[in-house]
């Protein structure tokens, strides 16, 4: 349904209708309409065919004789007003027309890009290797933490946490029952293979960022979360594995295609731009009140 709407918006007829209204309004106000007399308008068979196809696609049936007559009349009317409008230069400096022309040109170029055929297996592989980081799975962590509630510890929270850390990293650290340390907390104290992103969601950005750079194996910290302070021990850090093409084929295909389109457009633009000599005048002096 969005597609229908989008199609409608892209439909040149829609734009021309819009333009038609504008022209009609302007033309109605001006006394004489320009343009040369005696010019010929031929409604060719291919025009008629286009009209019929357009109608059938929208209404799911061919037009009746009467409707056909109306459509042709409308086409003629449009053509007359279009020519008159062009003769008056109404298409110039009109942002909608300019954008539309640019868009049409770019669509055309994109179609050219697509004509080189869909990317093959090797090209996809190469693209995946080139942008491996983009498709890499998120890093995952297994970690445990001890919580220190600032509301309970007040100003000594940091010192209290550091004291516990010193005990844990001391000689007898391994024998300490971690479960007896720190304050109550409503999230689990141990997370298995949790993604870095989810850690951020649960504890806040600061904690998430710091946690991924904690060395594995030993108690460390304290890290500040959105809840308070935490000593942490990261038991396992799994850097996101580079995925196989089969796992991310669809995304790679889509991205490569859109990159090619972009490249095609840029290359073409560079070529076209080279045909022009471009002069950019210096911006007008700013009208600033003198400062005293």
């Amino acid at each position, binding site marked *: 349904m969005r597609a229908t709407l989008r199609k409608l918006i892209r439909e040149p007829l829609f734009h021309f209708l819009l333009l038609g209204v504008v022209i009609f309004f302007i033309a109605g106000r001006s006394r004489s309409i320009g343009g040369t007399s005696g010019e010929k308008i031929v409604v060719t068979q291919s025009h008629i065919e286009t009209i019929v196809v357009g109608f059938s696609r929208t209404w799911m049936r061919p037009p009746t004789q009467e409707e056909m007559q109306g459509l042709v009349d409308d086409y003629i009317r449009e053509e007359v007003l279009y020519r008159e409008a062009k003769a008056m230069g109404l298409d110039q400096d009109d942002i909608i027309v300019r954008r539309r022309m640019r868009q049409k040109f770019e669509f055309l170029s994109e179609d050219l890009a697509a004509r080189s055929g869909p990317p093959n297996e090797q090209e996809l592989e190469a693209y995946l290797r080139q942008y491996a980081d983009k498709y890499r799975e998120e890093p995952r962590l297994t970690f445990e933490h001890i919580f220190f*509630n600032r509301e309970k510890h007040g100003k000594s929270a940091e010192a209290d946490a550091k004291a516990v850390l010193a005990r844990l990293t001391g000689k007898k650290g391994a024998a300490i029952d971690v479960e007896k340390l720190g304050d109550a907390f409503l999230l689990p104290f141990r997370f298995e293979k949790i993604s870095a992103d989810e850690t951020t969601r649960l504890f806040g950005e600061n904690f998430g960022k710091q946690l991924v750079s904690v060395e594995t194996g030993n108690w460390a910290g304290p890290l500040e979360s959105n*809840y308070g302070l935490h000593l942490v021990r990261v038991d396992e850090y799994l850097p996101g594995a580079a995925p196989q093409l089969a796992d991310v084929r669809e995304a790679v295909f889509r991205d490569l295609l859109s990159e090619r389109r972009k490249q095609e457009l840029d290359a073409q633009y560079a070529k076209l731009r080279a045909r022009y000599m471009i002069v950019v005048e210096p911006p007008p002096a700013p009208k600033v009140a003198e400062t005293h």
Partner: protein
Amino acid sequence: MKTKNTPIALGLALGLAGYSLPAFAQDSGEPDKAAIEKSFPSKPPYSPYAGRPFPARVYWGDTHLHTSYSMDAGAFGARLGPKDAYVFAKGNEITASSGQRVKLSRPLDFLVVADHSDGMGFFPMLLSGSQDVLNDPQGKKWYEMIQSGKGADAALDIVITFGKGQMPKAIFPLPGTAPYRNAWAETIKAAEEANDPGRFTAFIGFEWTSNTGGNNLHRNVIFRDNASKASLVEPYTTIKPLGSDNPRDLWKWMQTYEDKTNGRVLAIAHNGNLSNGRMFPLIESFTGKPIEREYAERREQWERLYEATQIKGDGETHPFLSPNDEFANFERWDKGNLDLSELKKPEMLEFEYARAALRNGLKLEKELGVNPYKFGMVGSTDSHTGLAAVEEDNFFGKTSSAEPSAGRAEHPFVKNPANPGVVIMGWETSASGYAGVWATDNTREALWDAMQRKETYATTGPRMIVRFFAGWDFVTTDANTRSPAVVGYQKGVPMGGDLQQAPGGKSPTFLVAALKDPIGANLDRVQIIKGWLDGKGETHEKVYDVAWSGDRKPDAKTGKLPAVGNTVDVPNATWTNTIGATELIKVWKDPEFDAAQSSFYYVRVLEIPTPRWTAYDAKYFGIKMPPEVTMTVQERAYTSPIWYTPAK
């Protein structure tokens, strides 16, 4: 009489019948005690959660979201379909129907796209301008209105025509027609594609929208099952003869679904506040007769949860019903029914709000032997935009025409020529809510099972973590243990659970804990709300402040706890966490317990005041809101109750 366990019981019976009795003889040798002991470790595992099947994480979601497939949503400009809704809920940035870019502060864990079953897929069909639509004079008229830029007029005309029950049959998607089948197939397909067990759950569901006379009796139906079962049926509608506006018929349909497919479904009602006294009846509006045991059993069986807060107002309680509750006047919608065709009368309120229904449930249980209103709580959006976006600073409104704009707050939301002068304004829509579900995993099965056992709570938008347990033996020190949940499950039952016949002379004890939203406001207080049935058959309620921030002391005379304060800077739409607590944990014992009286207890958690969405709007658009507009809000959570039932 049939129960929901019938298929399982039957299956067991059949399974057993398949064996001849001697099959019970051992064919695995003689049991050896020493060998068996090895498989039962003597020491508990190091991790307090290991080996325990209880939920360690709360999952966040919306059980009630409409997309362009809902007729009214489409009419008001929604162009996002179910697929877009799931993409957005997963935390991706998309373009809203109004053309604005939008993204959630963080992803949701699950989503139910619940489009209205009546006319499901009507708008996508109408916009397609298909042959069927154009062959119908009414359809052709609407299509042409939309094509010629008069979409808003067409929408109004469609909504009015639907309200009058005059939709042309030929183009209205009814069960059995191709457009209806397509819309349902698309809905299922979108859920199947978005469902990612362990990471994101996309439920299959729909809304059954009984709205006769503008009185809201809506229910959302949620499937536990995958497409293989859900696609065997088409959603139940309200239009006769295929559908019905009576919830009893919906329950029959649900029973038939389970019988036919061996699947599971549950229903969640919402917006009793717009039902004008019909959502939680003692006297059924359809028959005028008192509800009987059959009604009570079926309702308790199928309607395990109630959506207690959402955009169209809060449904916990009302100042008229709870005059002593200073927080009862919250995001109130009490002018009339859904279309304001009938104005509110105070005597309706008792049958509309969750707390009053929980109270009447105790009364009915005594009379009928079954409590029909034994429901848990969830919050959800009921947004009609395809966007589950109800954070105060990221509120994308009820309908696509109410997506952020300078004028949306002062635009009338509901008005009815039948009652001129009574208007619900845009600013009265509430940026609320979400459902928190304590499940063992993020899958359709685990989340659905948690909903079925009511281990859920409602919030008005923030994601605070709330635990609530009841038992007979909680002691003060349990609040100081590192993992309150571990002791909670060991000694008690979680939210949604039951306590039965008090052991000699004991009062129930409760372990309650709340942790603020990691990116949200601090907590003001935790309250336990008790309702009970006395010896004379009258019900009562009382609100207890249980834990609060700072060193505030309850007033010696009134017992009221002083307000937490207010740091909200309305013009700048900011606040600071310089007041309130990040975490509140407490063990509480009911000081007024009577073992002979049935009762329920649920928790309400209040945040400190924060800017309401209207304040963010005023700041962003640089507009001045009229003086009557509420600019701050105390966001909150409501847990499912725990019920106490005395010995019979």
